[in-house]
């Protein structure tokens, strides 16, 4: 079985937390935190804004 999620989010940028942004800062957009083919568990983040 499969689950497909389609959602709207602010356009992403290449920056990420490693650049020292505080969580919740409006500077970045959508960021993926998973890769294709990666095994994932319920509760893990697939991405964040």
């Amino acid at each position, binding site marked *: *079985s*499969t*689950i*497909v*999620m*389609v*959602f*709207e*989010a*602010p*356009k*992403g940028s290449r920056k990420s937390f490693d650049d020292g942004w505080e*969580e*919740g800062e*409006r500077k970045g*957009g*959508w960021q*993926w*935190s*998973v*890769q*294709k*083919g*990666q*095994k*994932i*568990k*319920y*509760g*893990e*983040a*697939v*991405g*964040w*804004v």
Partner: protein
Amino acid sequence: LRTSLRNTKVEWKPIPVALGIGFLGAVQFYRVRQREQRRQIEEDEEARSQDEGHGSEEDEKRKPKKRKRIKPSGPWQVQVMSTLPLKGISRLWGRFNELQIPYYLRVPGFKLYSWVFGVNLSEVSESDLHIYPNLAAFFYRTLKPNIRPLDPRSTALLSPADGRVLQMGMIQHGEVEQVKGMTYTLEALLGTEPPSASSDSAPAQGPKKDAQGLKRHALPKEGEEDIITSDEEFAEVNGISYTLPNLLSGPKSQGGTPAMDASTTPKSLSETEVRADLALGDGRKQLWSSPTPTQAATALYYIVVYLAPGDYHRFHSPTSWVAEKRRHFAGELYSVSPYLQRTLPGLFTLNERVVLLGRWRWGFFSFTPVGATNVGSIKINFDRELRTNSLTTDTAADRAAEEAADRGEPNPGFAEATYAGASKLLGGHALRKGEEMGGFQLG
């Protein structure tokens, strides 16, 4: 011969169960084939009569069109598969898995299943596997509490279930980016464009009073998304008029500044309503208290998570959002294994699926569990009417087609329902991050 018959002792033996089930399967298969051939002949006759131009245009439109059998294109394996009665097989598989397993065979049976499909039994909530009467119950098992901690970041989107990320990316031009060589149009996958652009539940223009006399704010049209002017009257409850700023912070004080902060919202809203509004309001608060993110460019993203047979098959809400509509596509039940995804273009638009449409803090949000042959039943906890992979499914789809024909519209291909009740003001069913939404069941 007469004496031997008379003298021979008659002994009755049970026919092996598997033979019986095989026989039933064959009978069902034969019957479905007959029905398909009959339907094929009818369709050909219908097509021929259309060519000859019999019957008036109007009659044709009014006569409910029979649901055309979905004929996928693809290599010979797919053609063979498309002749199989997949729904019949799936329902038979479901029946088979609801058979009670003898008590002493349960533990070795489930351990064998876990060994074959890689189930981690240490995470299962019930340590005594005897509790599960059959494989269907074991398949729909729950996990131990707190065994899956949720990602603490408030802006994170969670994985709804255990599985593997098959594909993810941005949606360009309304098309889901190449998924292993296949391109889906968003419209085919979800039904029509996202509700924000054409939500027919929204009044066309201006706030209107609904049955309880509540003013409903018109949902924004394309291009005006989510830009709500801060002092526009949003709703009137119990004689108190609310604007968006004070919906979260209570009625205006004389000076026009919000009299209370969000934590002391007016008592007249029930707790769930407030929760729903906060689930949306959170986002909206950001809409009006700081430069709105939707004024920043937004894009549509998608992710596809594949659940293997051994995975935990309940799914949870990946974020706080409000589900407004549900579109149930009766569809077929091809396997969604990675092999078939590679060989069957448009698989997800063919299979039975339940599209939940709604909104989260950044705008449109949709959640679509897609069924498969072995797990054809999709359960949504808060949707009591939904019946998937059952004869009533087909009738629901046909009924939707007939209603559309009565309205003179093309067949939408799905049965739609709108969720209400979480919030009198906004409608929809509010879901919290991590809340269990439902799951997949065998058959």
